Structure formats: structure tokens, C-alpha cells
């Protein structure tokens, strides 16, 4: 019993973390048809900026650091989209390759600036202590991550489904040419979505920091997870990313606990199934 409760909580916490990582990736992928391979690097960049801020200005809370880092990474993403990716518009493969190259540049840049050692981000004081839940010990911050993921999902859902801007983004996802024809500024929306996706990655990196720390290689550890979640959940769907994150979180956690020898493939098995049965992912729509 204790095993199931503890591991369920673990899988929820890991799922929450995955959502903070992958929702921005899914958003950008959905609108721009662009597998943004810098996403892992942006996540890491966010974590490093957060760690730096908290060290340079003692007293900066994790939330402030997440906000500042989100903004900084959003600006970086915006510039990247406007001045670099835009030049290769229409050349999808070229763009993917370019994002991969930029990911390498960011990760070596981080190594140069922040050094090679892991830097911890401290947990907010009131969440640093483990809590007792039905007699089980569980770290409070991990529960907070689940709550944060739910709020982020709600916020994105409201933005996409309940606002005019969201309607324009969805129009762009469904049929870009038609959206242009009815006067939606698709180009500006591209940049905006890229900024938003980057911001979530940057802030997510900081919020994941107390668990993962900022370390070289974080980008490479995270990018495949974002890809898996989005392939499972469906491109461009926030619901898909949300459900996908928690499914992957559960498969990873229980898979490792019950079948430790399969630790390496456990995440990729569901992907093969999904690709075979529902190539567009659980919540994906056929692109027009």
C-alpha cells in the first residue's frame, strides 16, 4: 500500500515537472510546425539564470527568479525567432537543424559562463520540509510542482480557449493560410507564441531547479522527455501535453519501480504504441 501511494505521488510530481517542460514545446510545435530543439537548452538557460539571480541577489525568492528568468528567456526566444529562424521561413528542415545548432551554442555558452558544476536552486523555506501525508513522508515542494502545473495548464487553457488571442492562435494552428486571409497577423502571433513557449521553458527550468538543479547536460536530459510527451499527447494540444505528461510520469515511475531492468526503454515503449495506433497522438488533430 505504502509503495503505491508513494509512487503515485512521485509520478504526479514528475508529471507536473514534465508539463512545465513540454507545454511550451507543444505550443510552438503546434503553431509553427517547428520541432524547436532549443527547448531543452532554453529550459536549462532558465534554470541557470534563476540560479544566478538567487546567488547574486540574496533574498530573491524562487518565484521572483522564475518570473525574471521567464521574461529573460522569452526575450531571447523572441529575438531568436525574429532574427534567426525567420530567415529560414518555409524551410522546415533547415529550421530544425538551426534550432539544434543554437541548442549546442546555448549549452556551451552556459558552460562558459556558469562553469561545469551543478548549481542548486534553493527550495522556498516553507516548502523545504517534507510533509506527512497519511503517514507517508513526501517532499512538500514536489506537491507544489503538481499544483503549479495544474495552474499553468488552467492558465494556458483559458488563454487558448477563452480569449480572442487564443482564438487567433488556434486559427493559425488549424489553417494558417485561411487565418492570414481573414486578417489575423500570423507573423506577429508566431513571435508571440515563440516568446510564450520560451517563457514557460525558462520559468519551468527555475521551478524544476530545486529538484533537478542547474547542471551541464540538463538540456540533453530534458529534450527527449519533451518530445516523448508531445508525441504521446499530440502536437499543439495543451490538453494533450497535460495528459501526456502525467501518463509519462506514471509510466516512468512505476516502470522503474516494478521493472528496473527496463529503465532505459520504458519511456519509449508507449511512444511506439502511440505512433503505431494513433500517429497524431492522443489529442492531436490532423494538420490541414
Amino acid at each position, binding site marked *: 500500500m505504502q509503495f503505491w501511494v508513494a509512487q503515485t505521488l512521485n509520478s504526479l510530481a514528475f508529471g507536473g515537472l514534465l508539463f512545465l517542460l513540454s507545454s511550451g514545446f507543444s505550443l510552438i510545435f503546434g503553431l509553427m510546425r517547428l520541432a524547436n530543439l532549443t527547448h531543452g537548452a532554453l529550459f536549462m538557460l532558465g534554470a541557470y539564470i534563476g540560479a544566478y539571480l538567487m546567488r547574486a541577489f540574496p533574498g530573491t525568492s524562487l518565484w521572483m527568479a522564475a518570473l525574471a528568468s521567464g521574461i529573460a528567456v522569452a526575450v531571447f526566444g523572441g529575438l531568436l525567432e525574429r532574427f534567426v529562424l525567420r530567415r529560414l521561413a518555409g524551410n522546415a528542415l533547415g529550421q530544425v537543424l538551426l534550432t539544434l545548432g543554437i541548442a549546442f551554442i546555448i549549452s556551451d555558452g552556459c558552460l562558459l559562463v556558469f562553469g561545469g*558544476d551543478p548549481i542548486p536552486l534553493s527550495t522556498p523555506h516553507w516548502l523545504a520540509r517534507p510533509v506527512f501525508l497519511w503517514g507517508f513522508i513526501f*517532499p512538500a515542494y514536489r506537491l507544489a510542482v503538481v499544483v503549479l502545473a495544474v495552474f499553468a495548464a488552467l492558465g494556458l487553457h483559458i488563454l487558448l480557449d477563452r480569449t480572442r488571442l487564443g482564438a487567433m492562435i488556434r486559427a493559425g494552428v488549424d489553417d494558417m493560410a485561411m487565418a492570414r486571409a481573414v486578417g489575423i497577423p500570423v507573423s506577429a502571433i508566431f513571435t508571440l507564441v515563440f516568446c510564450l513557449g520560451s517563457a514557460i521553458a525558462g520559468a519551468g527550468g527555475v521551478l524544476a531547479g530545486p529538484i533537478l538543479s542547474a547542471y*551541464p547536460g540538463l538540456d*540533453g536530459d530534458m529534450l527527449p*522527455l519533451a518530445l516523448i510527451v508531445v508525441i504521446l499527447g499530440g502536437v499543439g494540444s495543451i490538453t494533450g501535453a497535460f495528459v501526456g505528461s502525467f501518463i509519462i510520469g506514471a509510466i516512468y515511475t512505476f516502470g522503474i519501480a516494478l521493472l528496473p531492468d527496463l529503465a532505459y526503454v520504458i519511456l519509449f515503449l508507449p511512444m511506439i504504441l502511440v505512433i503505431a495506433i494513433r500517429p497524431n497522438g492522443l489529442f492531436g488533430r490532423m494538420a490541414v
Partner: protein
Amino acid sequence: MKMSRRTMLHGTAGLATAAALSAPARAAEPIRLGLLTVKTGPLASGGLDMERALTMFLKERDNTLSGRKVELIVADTAGAPATARTKTQELVEKNDVHCLMGPLAAFEALAIDDYIREKKIPVLGVAAAEDVTQRKPNPWLVRGTSSSAQCAHPMGEYCAKELKYKTMITIGDDIAYGHEMTAGFQRVFEENGGKIVQKLFAPLTAPDYGTYISQLKEADAIFIGFAGSNGFRFLRQFNEYGLQAKLIPVGGMTALDEAVLRNMGDEALGIVTTCWYSAELDNPANQKFAPAFRAENKYDPGFYAAATYVEGAVLEAALKSIDGKIEDKPAFMAALRATKTDTVRGPVRFDEFGNVIGNVYIRKVTRKEGRLVNSVIKTYPDVSQFWTYDQKAFLANPVYSRDWPPAKNLSN
């Protein structure tokens, strides 16, 4: 028109060989030393320290060993076996190095093993893979650091006899290094009356250890066999789950390296680890090295910095005994293996396989002058890779792995 320094050097090298046999002319040719290290990617922290310490070692000697200039050529393997192989080839065939130092990781060392044998290039190794100095010894290798389990053996005894732990858990990276280290620990700990009740291995790139931590059973202590930033992340998460009160963490030689300690807080205090080095050692060589390294880089030297500094001292001693004649490869190799010298890790010598015999230190994290340090609490002198076992019997066993020696005391 453009003539690079290297072509220039090749030119002069050619001339020097032409004038070959007269000794003064040969002395003019520099010794070319290739360093295989990692300057990009996740392993770069240790790799950069390897380069810094070696550069410092050579600078202190005015880049001269046994009266010959030393030209250091550094290659970045990016921590990838394939790149390590290409870079080795480049160092050997293009730069024509006399000997190599490195590489950092065991899987890199294995990737270049065949090539080294084929080209007969003397290598001063850093990576810990067991079998390159055991069942498949490479005649061109000396290793001044240690094999994977060399420091874990004494730790097994220390945990059983001095710390009086009865039951323990081991956890490590799911790579040969993690398997070998925890296996060596398990063997000695169990032979001294302890019981390993649980053995866990996590993928090298495991994003999160929560799943593993929730599974930990009841035991006196847990042996942490992680490398790089993994041990650091594991310990943080371990504390996050409030386990430090229930289960005492102890570590292998890379779990709480100085490189990691400088980013840790009070949670690291009191943790006991084992290694062939500590920045706190008070031998004369280290009393010069550690403060100098700290002054230059603002942090304590750890495992990787000490590794190349020790190998530098071994190289220096060997060259001295053959009067700097590095071109005679068999004689140079024999000299390397016959080396007995004092280094920053204490006295070292080598066994017939080229693996080091030297002190292993049990260290405890304490706070000193505001920073965390690994204070030495016990010294196991002259530890060989075979520990106290008979060499023949040791080598007749299979190499340490996930499943050998078998764990017979696992609880369900």
C-alpha cells in the same frame, strides 16, 4: 604564404631528427604530450580541471622535464567514445605525440584501447575501468588514479568494522563504473559481516531519483556510487524526502568530490566518503599544490585536478630515470611502471599491470574557514587494486559487474 606554428614545428622537428644521433640536437626537440580531456558537455567540469592542473604542473616546471621542453596538446573528446577515438588518432598521427594522458571516462578509455595497443603509445590513464589493468591488461598503460573498486574495497571494511553498520543499501550509476565500484564495496562489506539488503542502479541520465528514493528499504546506511553531478542531485533529493535522519549516506570516490562540495550546504556535513585524494592531505607536495590551485581558480582541487597532477609527477619521475629519452618506447614504458615517487596523493608505485598502489583515504565532510572540505579521518596505506586478495584468485573471478559477486542477502 601562411606558415602555421605547427608546420614550423614539424619542420624543425624534421631537422632535429636529421641531426639525429648527437645528444644536444635531440634535446632541442620538445616532448609532445597529448591530453585527452572533456571540455564541452556534461563531463566538462572534471575535464577542465584536468587541463588546469596539468598546465599548472608544467608551468611550475617552466614547461621543462628532464631538460627537455614539453609541448602540451589538449584535445577535447566531448565525453563521446567516437570522438575520443578520432582525437586520439589526431594526436598520434598528426601531432605525433610521444605519450598520452587521459581520457576521463571509462567508456572513452575502452574506445581507444585497441588503437593504443596497435600504435604502441604510452598512456598515463585517468579512467577507472577495472579490466584494462586486470584481465585484459594493456601493456602501454599506467594508471596513477585507481581502478573503479580500489577505493571502495577499504570503504567496505571501514563501514563494517569501524562504523559497525550491519545492513546497507548500494545505489550507483547503471554503467560499468557504478557496477564495479558498488560490487567491490559489497564484496568487502559482506565478507566483514555486513549485509547488502538492496542494490539499485539508475540510468546515467535519470532526470529524477524520487522513484528510487521512495523504494529504499530499512538499513543502517546507504553507499552512493554515483559520478559527476548525479551524486550531488541524489543527495539533495534524498534530503528532500527527509531520509537523512533514517539512513546514513556514505559515498564512493566521486560522490562528494571537492568540485561538488563547493556548491553544497550543511546537508553535506559529516558524510563519509572514500578516495585516493583529498585537497586536505598534509603531505609536502599537496601542501604546495592545493593552496596554489585554490589561489589560481578560487576553489579546491578535487579528483580530476589531482589525477593529472599525479600523472604529471609520475611522468616526471619516469623521464628522469631514463634521462629524458622518451623516444625509446619500451624503455620509457618500463620506467613508467617502475616509478616510485611522492605525489600530491602520497607515495605511489605500480603493480605488474601498470595500476597504481597507493594510499586510500577515508574522508569526512567538515567545515573549515567557511568552506566545506573532505577531512581525512583514516588512511589505508598502499592499497592495491586487488585489496587483500590473492592476485591469482582475484583474476580467476569474473570482473565486477551488476551480478557479480551475487548479492545473497537482498531483502524482499
